[in-house]
């Protein structure tokens, strides 16, 4: 029998949304990071990881380039740069 249509947990990781980025991507400078965790907290894609000062970075496979992490960083330690 086909159905019911059931999805395995967290299988959306098969769907890479990185190609959605057209103009900008974040650049984690890793200089003045105070490990406030805000970039990780606000990311709508849940694609930022890190644990401790200057360890945070984004996953280019999923980042859509919204720029929220850069906007929220209190130390301006994340920049939005031209997608290369």
């Amino acid at each position, binding site marked *: 029998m086909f159905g019911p249509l059931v*999805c395995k947990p967290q299988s959306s*990781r098969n769907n890479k*949304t990185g190609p959605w980025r057209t103009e900008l991507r974040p650049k984690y400078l890793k200089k003045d990071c105070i490990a406030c965790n805000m970039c990780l907290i606000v990311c*709508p894609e849940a694609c930022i990881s890190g644990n401790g000062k200057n360890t945070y970075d984004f996953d280019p496979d999923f980042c859509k380039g*919204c720029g929220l992490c850069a906007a929220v960083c209190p130390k301006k330690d994340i920049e939005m740069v031209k997608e290369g």
Partner: protein
Amino acid sequence: MSKTLFNSGHTACAGCGQSMAARLVIDAAGPNTIVANNTGCLEVFSTKYPETSWGIPWIHSLFENAAAVASGIESAIKYLGKGDEINVIAQAGDGGTADIGLQALSGMLERGHNILYVCYDNEAYMNTGVQRSGLTPFDTNTTTSPVGSVSSGNLRPKKPMPEIANAHGIPYVATASAGFPQDLQRKVKKAISIKGPKYIQVHVPCPLGWRHETNLTMQIAKLAVETGLYPLIEYENGIISARRSITPKPVEEYLKLQGRFKHLLQDPEEIKKIQDIADNNIKKYGLKVELQQ
């Protein structure tokens, strides 16, 4: 990848306030949670077969029935003797909550089910293309409350959903905002620690429908709170138990960042009406604190 119960790969728009808030909510609630989700953006962008972003048992049935489906889930786990182990969350957008789903929600609240209901309030029917809902603010330009030569947008103020929920005599009601993520998570944790029906309404900016830059989601959500347009309140057993105090900013600061209010910027009379709504909230809920010298 961070450890989360709402994972990457969903198809929400860049900068989506709802996808941010939904992750904060489920991560605060934890893995022993079952979610019933109304139809809407969140359901569509997170569960496109054969993939799902959710790491908890999750079910979608229809647009208006998550509260009733959750009532069945809660009754089933009670029957199974697991009522104390498992949290049940029903969640929906503003239209699914305040309009088409209001009856089912009211029934769920009145019957006393041990369920947390979360309304993600992005102030219009975004999934269908930005149509006006009962939670669309006054003077908003939407596709069904358009601005025209004889109209400055939506005719009515927001339906007072938190008060309506509170009027059911439930133990906990709160408003929250994507602009204050830790506060949101604290409220979710508090809610699930209380037995009975709980209602949390989260203000979630929608870059597409509100027409703002994707990197402004946080800032706009914060400004809604700081102007007094979206008061952050907690009710416990019917009485306001906490409020986020603000040093009020003028509403233009909030309005000017969003395309949906662009038509108001040259219209001081209409802005005054919106300022009155904010001032009224500030007075009604006692939000104002003076700056310390």
